[in-house]
């Protein structure tokens, strides 16, 4: 399997490195706010990968909802909590343990990659260039209109439920 070095593959490489890097940063941070920001960065990189797949609408919605709204919601919650960090994050494990876990993770990675490369992918490549907003709108509001409406009712019920729960707590 030859990997051609086109602009698209370079962009994919950079974006996936950013997404994975954000994930690693999130795990390694000691402060919760840093974690949320790393998560937001990771989610933003995934939006970039959607753009590469010509799914512009999905990419923009990803930025709007995940990078924007959900990260801000999490930050909001966290900021009202304690600011001080417990700086006890010292190196405590033995060298043998880390070596052993590195070997284990490496072996798992090798097995997974080996299986992925050996699996033949069935089916043809989809024509992603036809995934315009217009086509998306037509399929959601014509073909899948009943599931769409049901979902909206479900969300409305959840919203009303949240309001009622919050009201009960405020009264007591």
């Amino acid at each position, binding site marked *: 399997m030859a990997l051609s070095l086109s602009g698209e593959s370079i962009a994919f490489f950079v974006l996936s490195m950013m997404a994975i890097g954000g994930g690693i940063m999130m795990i390694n941070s000691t402060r919760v706010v840093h974690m949320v920001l790393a998560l937001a960065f990771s989610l933003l990189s995934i939006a970039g990968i959607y753009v590469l797949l010509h799914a512009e*609408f999905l990419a923009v919605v990803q930025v709007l909802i995940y990078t924007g*709204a959900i990260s*801000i919601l999490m*930050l909001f919650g966290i*900021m009202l909590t304690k600011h001080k960090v417990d700086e006890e994050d010292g190196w405590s494990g033995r060298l043998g343990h880390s070596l052993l876990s590195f070997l284990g993770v490496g072996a798992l990675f090798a097995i997974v990659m080996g299986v992925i490369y050996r699996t033949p992918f069935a089916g043809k490549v989809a024509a992603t260039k036809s995934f315009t907003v217009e086509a998306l709108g037509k399929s959601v509001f014509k073909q899948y209109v009943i599931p769409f409406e049901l979902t909206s009712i479900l969300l409305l019920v959840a919203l009303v439920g949240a309001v009622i729960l919050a009201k009960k707590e405020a009264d007591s």
Partner: protein
Amino acid sequence: MQAMTFIGPVILLGIVLGFVTIAILFERKVIGWMQGRHGPNRVGPWGVLQSVADVLKLLLKEDIIPHQADRSLFKWAPVIAFIPAFAVLAVIPYTSSLFFADIGVGLLYYIAVSSITTIGVLAGGWASNNKYALLGAMRSAAQMISYEIPLVMAVIGVVMSVGSLNLIRIVEAQKDLWFILPQFIGFVVFFISSLAELNRTPFDLPEAESELVAGYHVEYTGFRFAFFMLTEYVYVFAMAGLTTVLFLGGWNPLFGMDFIPPIIWFALKFSLIVFALFWIRATLPRIRIDQLMQLGWKVLLPLALANIFLSAILKEIPWINQFY
């Protein structure tokens, strides 16, 4: 790849920086004039070099990072806030041939990317480790989230009549009639929400100096502070451009006066919006936080929803539907 792909954004950055310099001076002059003062008049003739001097001072100032601050986040926050402000300019079409990106979801792109700035503001307020900064950041985030909803709802009427989210197609659809007339409710809701999104008076609660010192950037000095201010004025540029494109017909001429080049038409409408922003700042007092939330959720949002229904109904009535 063409050379313009690389040079174009640099030229745009130069134009935007020039706009910011002039806009700050213009704002101070206009407000001074409306309040019966002179405004800046010491640096250069008519005070033209005042902003240049201010920027120079900011760049030469000592860069102070508070001892208790979160150092890395404190440095990153202005960058996180500024990058989206400049990135949104990519989708705004200036004339039918002068634009940077022609993407199908241009309008949504603007709204999505501009919401990232809130993260920078929150991060800056939190990293400063100052209660006023944190309170200012919280208010700012609450305000931006609350007013983003009516802002988006207000443009749905426009999107419905064009049938596209592409900003160039939206301008082309306004060849005969600008959307400010059929979508007047939408325009009013959009304009008020955009004032709140820009954190400008009467919605400048995040930096209410009488109660919060200076809001989220109270601990910032020098060029980092300059970056936050720059973000704010770049958003003024972007929002004025977006309002022009959505409701004032972009580069389309008025009364068929097409002997004036389209870019001048765009600049005229754009300047009108910028002037209106300064005019409102000089006229109205700041509102309270509870009034702010009530206005957003109880007035603007229902109005925007009503506008969507009205547009949908009028779109089905014969004869009237030619305007929608």
